């Protein structure tokens, strides 16, 4: 581990630019919560823009989670130890693991960061799909890690596991493999059988971060969480999950990692103390028990996906199979021009991703929001802009 590069290198500067760009986007996007709820017609405006760019859950959190927070607010003057312990225990039970196999993060971003800090540095390699969610790369690069990006497969835009594996075989030192399943921005899945075959047969010098931020949305039987490898006692991976997506708690910042006890112990030295706040832990714990809310989120996402795919079919815009709360689809212009045109109609859609010009990542909000989106898309089509 060489921390020098973390601080002084120009690489850090570039990584930091990436981070701050991300952060400021949230600042631009003023919330339109009131307008996005329910099934009433949604009319995007400058004051209430339609936010389909961060893969947040427009439904808002589970009512049980909200009630739990309100109930526990008076205790928020206390450090969060109790609530954290309770959440860890629920997560352990729910995932068939022990408490020592769970770590909490200030968002799953922090779980990814802990793993990168623990395993990356000079003389190590990070292997990641390209494009994918780029935090692993942002954290690893300033540490002097060799970054090896492996392009998605040509037509399907599926993750190219074979090529990623070849990259680890060519590298003599420690390789950290970042796998995002479903992948962001494509919303496609990598079959469990393929991931498991690799993780089960990989040499000891290869460590896997399996980012399952959208895990709860997947219904395809070819998918399975890599948590079952952790259950089986594998020590060469961590599974990162978040409460920011289906559980709608992005503003509270809470995620978790599942791994072998010794991996968790090692990662915890990189976690900031008391890193998850009390309302977050309370809300996360209540959300896990609210199966009705999960069903509702899944069914509204399915409805919204249908509204969008029907329109894309109608407009003859290709798209990838969506296994998450977003969809990756073709546009009839450059991605940047399309985003700009949508922005003029007060709709924020997606953000730039490498090598995929002519595509856009669209968050699936409520059905009412997606109807507003479809209307805008058709307007752009009439003007030959989409």
């Amino acid at each position: 581990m060489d921390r020098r590069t973390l601080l002084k290198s120009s690489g850090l500067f570039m990584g930091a630019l990436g981070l701050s760009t991300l952060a400021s986007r949230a600042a631009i996007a003023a919330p339109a919560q009131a307008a996005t709820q329910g099934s009433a017609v949604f009319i995007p405006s400058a004051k209430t823009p339609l936010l389909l760019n961060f893969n947040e859950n427009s439904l808002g959190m589970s009512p049980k989670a909200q009630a739990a927070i309100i109930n526990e607010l008076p205790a928020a003057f206390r450090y969060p130890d109790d609530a954290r312990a309770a959440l860890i225990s629920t997560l352990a039970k729910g995932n068939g693991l022990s408490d020592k196999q769970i770590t909490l993060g200030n968002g799953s971003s922090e779980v990814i960061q802990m793993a990168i800090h623990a395993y990356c540095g000079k003389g190590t390699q990070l292997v990641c799909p390209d494009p994918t969610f780029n935090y692993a790369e942002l954290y690893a690069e300033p540490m002097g890690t060799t970054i090896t990006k492996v392009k998605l497969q040509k037509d399907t835009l599926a993750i190219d596991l074979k090529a990623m594996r070849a990259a680890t075989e060519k590298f003599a030192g420690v390789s950290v493999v970042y796998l995002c399943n479903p992948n962001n921005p494509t919303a496609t899945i990598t079959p469990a059988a393929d991931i498991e075959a690799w993780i089960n047969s990989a040499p000891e010098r290869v460590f896997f971060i399996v980012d399952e931020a959208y895990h709860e949305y997947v219904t395809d039987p070819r998918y399975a969480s890599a948590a079952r490898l952790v259950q089986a006692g594998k020590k060469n991976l961590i599974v990162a999950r978040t409460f920011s997506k289906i559980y709608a708690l992005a503003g509270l910042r809470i995620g978790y990692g599942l791994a072998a006890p010794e991996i968790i112990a090692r990662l915890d030295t990189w976690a900031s103390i008391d890193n998850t706040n009390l309302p977050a832990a309370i809300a996360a714990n209540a959300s896990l028990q609210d199966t009705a809310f999960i069903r509702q989120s899944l069914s509204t996402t399915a409805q919204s996906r249908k509204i969008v795919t029907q329109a894309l079919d109608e407009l003859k815009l290709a798209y990838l199979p969506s296994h998450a709360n977003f969809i990756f689809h073709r546009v009839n212009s450059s991605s940047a021009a399309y985003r700009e045109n949508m922005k003029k109609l007060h709709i924020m859609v997606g953000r730039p991703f490498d090598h995929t010009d002519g595509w856009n990542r669209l968050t699936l909000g409520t059905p009412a929001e997606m109807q507003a989106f479809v209307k805008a898309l058709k307007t752009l089509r009439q003007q030959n802009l989409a």
Partner: protein
Amino acid sequence: MMNLAERAPDYIRAIAPYQAGKPISELAREMGLDEAAIVKLASNENPLGLPPKARAALEAALSDLARYPDGNGFALKAAIAERFAVTQDQVLLGNGSNDILELVARTFLRPGDSVVFSEYAFAVYPLVTQATGARAIEVKARDYGHDLDAMLAAIEPSTRLVFIANPNNPTGTLIKPGALLEFLEAVPEDVLVVLDEAYTEYLAPELRADVIGFLARFPNLLVSRTFSKAYGLAGLRVGFALASAAIVGMINRVRQPFNVNSLAQAAAVAALDDADFLARAVALNRQGMAQLTEALARLDLPYIPSFANFVTFHVGDAAALNSYFLRHGVIVRPLASYNMKNSLRVSIGLEEENARFIEVLEAALR
């Protein structure tokens, strides 16, 4: 097969995890006690609870939590900048001030560097130092407080950081403004002084250093503050630092983009504006301090005069007394991990909580 955990550098494996105050629910389970009857005086929290204005702000903020927080913390930074008469680019936000301490270490330390702090100073300083692979230079305390002359003398060419807690946790000791100024004047310019003022709100005005004035004079000063103590927001996790724009800018590069959650940001803005609550918290602390120290004196238990919201006292067998407290539903903080195995730290609570502590203490000594 090589164990991946063993690949961690020695300096990481050497870290003993931070020991937090025992959770109430855990004690209730272990001892078969009623949670409501347990008095927790272990984590230097604010016994008054949340500031009323923060409570209202939290409720208003609840509806928007599905969205990511403002990663730049605009409203909170603006409120802090206004309150302390600094510019917004001099304000750094943290997920608690622990996050600030860690970010500073991560930004400025690498293996081979050294860090100066005092014996008995806040436990997180050695932790964050070790995590970066830097070397800790621990300077012997004088009367349980910082020996600034010795700390100055301990600075080496490899020294990048000095941590100072003022008042210090767990000893409650204070460095007077004049001594602090002299120290800052003497510290080499290329050494960053991290002045951790987690408990500064409890100080009488004449004991408070003019750190804002210091900031203008010393570009190598960073002042860390928290909303966890006098502001009553420990569970929400928010702290901040004031420093030169250059230093803040550098640290922002390693900060998590969304490190402070939306509720914490909203509550902190409101708490800054709740002067009445702060005044009540400080007054209650003064009374509670008198109540506890009078009892300690009456029971012939020596204690370290404290300027914070807790007091550390010495007993023969602190471990035995601690388990007696636990059995009777009182949680205090043993200090063996600070190498003070004959001492216990008690946080100042509400009058009746302090009374319960005194009652159990008297029974234990009888």
